[in-house]
Each structure stands twice: as structure tokens, then as C-alpha cells.
């Protein structure tokens, strides 16, 4: 019992570390420029202003960026997760030569830093003529070693009796995957979808280098444009833009979070 107050203090401290910057982002987005630079800091803006949002929206074609980000996130996530699920199923349930070696290779791909593959990917995409296209933005990212690994590890925890029973009932691999394995893996699947979607949405380096025109750029690159306003960064406007970019992912996370937590407890009960 004595530890309780201490725990709360520690929890509050950690919460402040995580939420402090987010709160500063949120409040700065509604401040007038003078208040941003005030010392001691102004924690709550005197007059809430929406001006920063309209300035940010007007400074760059954010409607187009939103559309591009949405297309890339949806298409990228669908392709990546489908790819990961099918690969993971093969590694978990099929028997084929060199399975161990191939899986080790995939694990190895996880260890390679992204920088290393950027240049070869760029050259490949360039020779395919995919610079400044959706294909160039989406296709190089659809193989994810991490998502494959997560799905495979989860498939291996499923009781083999269930898949055996499905096989006895005459279900083929695709039916087993769709009707048996995936419904049992729902929490993990949702986790992988959320991680992938956030990754696609936030991706900055790749869209920056394969796009040339405003009509193909995505939101994170749009934030850079907002910040590059000839050295005169207006922090209120930048924070407002950041908030606009952040909001959809925050929503997705809040909605999906129940399932993710559900998945963890489900696994714990199984023992």
C-alpha cells in the first residue's frame, strides 16, 4: 500500500514526458505568434485563434497532399499486409525446400538499415520510369519483413488441432487461411495493419525523393514545405499543419487500440 503514492508520482512524471510535447503542439497551434515566444511560457492561449489552420492550409496544396497520403496509405497497407499474411502463412504451414534459409534471409532483411536500400530502390524505380508516380511511391515498400515475422510468429502459436480439423474437413489453404487462421489472429492482424498504416502515413524520405511536383507529394513532405518558408518559420502555422497531419492516425489508433489490448489479454489467458 505504501508504494501507491510513489507509483502515482512516477506515472504522472512519465505521462508528463509523453504528453507534454503533444500538449505544447496542441496549444501552440491555437496561439498568436507573440504568445509562442512569451517567457515564462503561456500554457493556455488567451485568445484561441483558428488563423494558423487556414494559413497552413493556404500555404501549400494540403487538400492534394491529403488525397495522396490517403491513396498511398490505403493501397500501401492493403498490399503490404496481404503480402505479409500470405508469406507468413507459407512459412508457418507449408513444407518446401530451403524454408529455414529463406526465413533467415527475411529476418536478415529486417536488420538492413533503410538507408542501404534507398539508393538501389531509387535506381530501380527510375529505370522503370516510376519517378513521380503512385506506383513508384507504393510498390517498393510492399515487402515488409517485420510484418511477415510478426504474423508468422503468431500463426505458430495457434493450436495445430484446429488447422488439422480444417484439413480433415477438406478446406484448402486459402480457405483455411481466410476462415480459420485469420479470424483466430484478428488482434495481431489489426496490430500489423495499424503499425503499417502509421508507417505509410508518416513515411517522409521516400516520398521526398521520388516525387518532383506538388501534385504528387504527401503530407509529411508538405510539412517540410511549410517549414521552408524562406527561413521565417511561423511555429503556430507549422504546429497547426502538424496537427492536421497527426489527427487521422490518432483517430485510427484510438479506434483500433481496444482490439490490440484485447489481443494481449487473450494471449495471456491461454497460458
Amino acid at each position, binding site marked *: 500500500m505504501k508504494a501507491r503514492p510513489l507509483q502515482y508520482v512516477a506515472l504522472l512524471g512519465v505521462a508528463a514526458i509523453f504528453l507534454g510535447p503533444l500538449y505544447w503542439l496542441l496549444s501552440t497551434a491555437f496561439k498568436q*505568434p507573440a504568445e509562442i*515566444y512569451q517567457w515564462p511560457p503561456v500554457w493556455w492561449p488567451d485568445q484561441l485563434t483558428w488563423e494558423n489552420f487556414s494559413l497552413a492550409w493556404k500555404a501549400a496544396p494540403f487538400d492534394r497532399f491529403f488525397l495522396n497520403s490517403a491513396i498511398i496509405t490505403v493501397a500501401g497497407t492493403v498490399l503490404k499486409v496481404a503480402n505479409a499474411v500470405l508469406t507468413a502463412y507459407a512459412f508457418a504451414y507449408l513444407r518446401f525446400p530451403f524454408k529455414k534459409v529463406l526465413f533467415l534471409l527475411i529476418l536478415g532483411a529486417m536488420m538492413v538499415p533503410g538507408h542501404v536500400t534507398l539508393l538501389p530502390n531509387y535506381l530501380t524505380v527510375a529505370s522503370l520510369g516510376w*519517378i513521380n508516380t503512385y506506383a513508384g511511391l507504393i510498390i517498393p515498400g510492399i515487402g515488409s519483413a517485420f510484418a511477415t515475422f510478426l504474423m508468422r510468429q503468431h500463426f505458430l502459436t495457434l493450436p495445430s488441432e484446429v488447422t488439422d480439423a480444417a484439413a480433415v474437413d477438406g478446406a484448402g489453404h486459402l480457405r483455411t487461411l481466410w476462415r480459420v487462421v485469420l479470424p483466430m489472429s484478428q488482434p495481431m492482424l489489426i496490430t500489423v495493419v495499424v503499425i503499417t498504416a502509421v508507417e505509410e502515413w508518416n513515411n517522409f524520405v521516400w516520398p521526398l525523393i521520388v516525387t518532383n*511536383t506538388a501534385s504528387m507529394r504527401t503530407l509529411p513532405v508538405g510539412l517540410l514545405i511549410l517549414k521552408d518558408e*524562406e527561413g521565417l518559420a511561423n511555429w503556430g502555422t507549422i504546429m497547426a499543419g502538424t496537427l492536421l497531419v497527426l489527427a487521422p492516425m490518432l483517430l485510427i489508433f484510438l479506434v483500433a487500440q481496444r482490439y490490440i489490448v484485447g489481443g494481449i489479454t487473450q494471449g495471456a489467458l491461454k497460458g
Partner: protein
Amino acid sequence: MRRRGFLGLAAASALAGCGYRSVDAIYSQPAGGVPKQYANRVRVVFWSSFGGVNGKAVDGLVAKFNESQQDVYVEVQFQGSYDDVAQKIAAALVAKQAPDLAILSDVTWERFFLNDALEPLNGYFTDGFGPGVYQPKLFGEYVVKEQSWAVPFARSTPILYYNRDAFAKAGLPDRAPRTWSELRSWGPELARVQSGGRSLRTIAFAKIDGDWQFQGNVWQFGGAYSDGLDVKIDQDGAVAAGEWQREMVHGLGQAYMASSPSTDFANGLVGVIQESTGGMKTITGKAKFEVGAGFIPSEVATGIATGGGGIGMLRNISSERKQAAAAFLTFLARPENSAWWTTQTGYLPVVNAAREDAELKKLIAEQPNYGVAIAQLANARQQDAIRLYGRNSNVAIYTGLQQIYADNAAPREVFRSVARRLEAIGDEVRRQYEEKVL
């Protein structure tokens, strides 16, 4: 992940290698969109580094050009900072694409020139576009062995911006300080002025790209970055300039390192900054006080670095695209367009006759700040070769400055290690430099 890391890699493979690229191959044009009414024209892709107020001015010039004739359509594509544009071009050349025109900064055009990526411009010169038209000092910086490799456009020098309201409150004269020592002696008065709940600091130094202003500061303290490619930054004059700044930050607490000095200045947090004259319109527009401007102070000598962007034409494009691009450059060389650009941004008028333009004269009469850089141009000169020709010399120098501002490192030690780095950089380009420039 660091995009500079990647793009640096791309740049290295594109440029250092040379084997990749045949100098006269014709590369495709970056994609984009052409509005219907311009569909039948020759398209020119122009990669620009200007956002905000200055970006709108570029758009204005391009729109006027597209309206003024029937044959060429110029499409501006904003690519980020000067360095971003250079890295995008390097990456594009690897992908066998080339924009037709690009804004190249004081330190980026040289590497494209050294690697045969720029089109020589002498063949396109006419009476209205060429040596006699441009301001000779600025035009001459792009001339190597009597051949022009780019033309000046958004050229600038640093000028000293000061907060006139704060100076009045501090009881200081309404002018820029004449020497750095004078500015230091004003620090205590400025510190008595309150701003945003704190006492006003005298000067802010830039975290990124401050090596451009510092080039001039080194000269003002009697030193140099280099003589040719022979590095001199570890010698007395440069060390004295570094020591003056270190003392201001750590000894007196009157200065600090800012990620954007002009933002802090416009918000009234600092008394003076050394900033490009190209920020004049932007800063004046944002500041809620009277902005003053004057010459950059001297110390034992005068001297400031020219800088900013010129426009280069890429070599790997079709002759039809080259002719069309030259038509746009000719349009920009008209005095009224050069003068308009100056009135909209604060950059130097790069065309001689632009100084006689009625609109510009009226603006300078009303707001003398716009005339400061023009008058100061007499003191300006081309930068030391190591910063111009050494790839990423600028990064090596401003990283050293960051150590001085942030860590209170001793300038002599810092510049000694910067000098070693610059010597290595110099050795990389020495062969090309001696062959093509000397």
C-alpha cells in the same frame, strides 16, 4: 533516416563517378502538369528553391512570362532549400532525368560545372541578355575562362537588420554599429530592454548555414577560409572572429544560437541579426516594429560575401528545350523584371538598368532599407575557393561553428579540426579545380 545521407550518396554516385553519364545524352523531363491553354508550347521545367513571399514573386514572374509570348511554357517546381535542389538534380541525373533550369546557390553551381552538367551560356547571349546587361561583379562570378555557366538571379549579401524600436528604448543611435566592438559595447543597454518577459539579447547566430555570414566575419577580422584551395581557417583572423562570437555567447551571454535567427528577430527576441538582403520583404512583413538595416560591421577590415542563387541551364536536355529555357532567361534579364523581383523580395537588382527603374527608385526613396545592400555591394566580393568548390565545405564549417556556439569549444581547436576536414575536401576537387578553373 537521413535524407541528406541518401541524397549525398546519390550526388556522389552521380557526380564523382562521371562514368554514369554521357555529357551530351538527352534526358527526359521531370513530369508535371501543363494547363490546357499552354498545351502546344515547348515546356520548360524550372526547379526553384523559393517558398513563401519569394516563391510568390517567382510565380509572378513565370506567370508574366507565360502570358507574354506564344511558344514556351515555364513550369516552376519547388524543391526545398538550395541544397535540396542540388541534391534533387544529382538524384535526377542518376535517373536519367533533367530539369531544364534550376536555381543554383553560390556553393552548388560549381560542382555541376566541374562535372560537365551545365550548359555553357555564351552561345545564347544577345543584346538584351549577356555580359553588358548584368551587374559585372555578380555576372563575373559565374564566368570561368571567359565562359558563362549560370546567370545571377536572386543574388544577395548579408546586411545587418536591427530593431529600431528596441534601439530607441535602449538609448542607442538609430543606425547599425560600425564595428563588432561597438556592437559588443551596446550589449548591456540592449539587455535592459524587455521582450516577451526576458531581456533582449544582442545578436543571434544561425545554427545551419551560418558559415556564409561567417565568411564575411572572418574577412572583417583579417582572416580567410582559404587562399585558392589552401585552407587558412585555422589561422589568426578566422580564430579571432570565432573567439569574438564565442565570447558573445558564453562570456557575456549576449548572443545565442538560433535555428532561425530571422524568425527570432521578427518576433522581437533579439536586437540585431546578419541576414540575407533577400529576406527584407519577408522580415519587414512579419515584424511588428520598425526594422532598420545597415552595413555589416567591420573590425580590422571591411568585406562581405556575395551569395544567393543564380540560374543554371542543364546540359542533358534537347536543343529545343535549351532554346526555350534561354528565352525565359532573356525575359528575366529585362530591367523591369529584375527591378520588380527586387521590390518583391529585397534581393539585389542583378541587371544594371534595373537600378534606374522608377518603381524601384520610389521604393528605395520610401524605404531606404531596400537600398542598403545595393550600396554595400562595393564592399562585397566572391568567397574563398574552398567554400565555393569544396563539396560540403559549408557543412564542415557550420558544424564547427555549432560546437563553438553550443559547447563553448575553443575556436582554435575547432578550426584546426575543421581545417583538416577542409583539406581532405580540397584534395577531392583539386585535380578538377586546377584543370577547369585555374
